[in-house]
């Protein structure tokens, strides 16, 4: 299930529901990305999506992960709108029979989400605002999976 929301994410409740009735699953990995207050200042993140298109693009990534890692299930929730430090930006959960598949799929999904997903992200600092691009690290992270594939 893939969903965008402009209200706060509740990773714990999402994990509780995701783990229910999983007597054949074995392994659940999750990742929660939290907005950081790097500067100690009142930085606000603003995330914009293209409703419909963004979910569909993430859905393609999720289907790739499902096939590549043999997953039982995937959950991706992403915040949009204004996000204050300490709030979750993204929650990803993967379920698989064994832990390596669950971990790698979660890692893979996050790398794609951080560098390729159709979001536009603006950082509102105390004095000014700026649009953010993926970090060099994010590009390097996602490149790992393309190398491995070949």
């Amino acid at each position, binding site marked *: 299930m893939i969903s965008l929301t402009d209200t706060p994410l509740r990773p714990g409740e999402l994990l509780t529901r995701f783990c229910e009735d999983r007597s054949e699953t074995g392994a659940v990995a999750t990742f929660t990305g939290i907005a950081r207050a790097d500067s100690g200042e009142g930085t606000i993140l603003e995330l*914009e999506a293209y409703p419909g298109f963004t979910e569909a693009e993430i859905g393609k990534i999720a289907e790739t992960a499902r096939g590549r890692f043999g997953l039982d299930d995937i959950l991706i929730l992403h915040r949009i709108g204004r996000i204050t430090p300490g709030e979750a930006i993204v929650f990803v959960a993967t379920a698989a029979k064994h832990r390596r598949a669950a971990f790698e799929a979660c890692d893979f999904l996050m790398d794609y989400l951080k560098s390729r997903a159709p979001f536009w992200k603006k950082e509102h600092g105390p004095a000014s605002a700026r649009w953010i691009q*993926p970090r060099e690290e994010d590009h390097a992270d996602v490149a790992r999976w393309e190398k491995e594939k070949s």
Partner: protein
Amino acid sequence: MARVLLFGPLRDLAGWRERDIAEAASISALKALLAEEDERLGEALSGPGVKVAVDQAIVNGDIAIGPRAEVAFLPPMSGG
């Protein structure tokens, strides 16, 4: 009549997010029309990394726009 959507820095630059534009029958005609109104926006729409989606599918090159098309200009994405 096409519905035109702008995202991220393009929206900031133009000062609008969404508009109906009646007169353009192709992507290139639409870009020309918008550039006529706002030269900086016109340049930005053809800037590096800007993708165009018609009815939520990325398109390459110039294509005709149907009367009820949704045309989105997508500047380089920030990721989630």
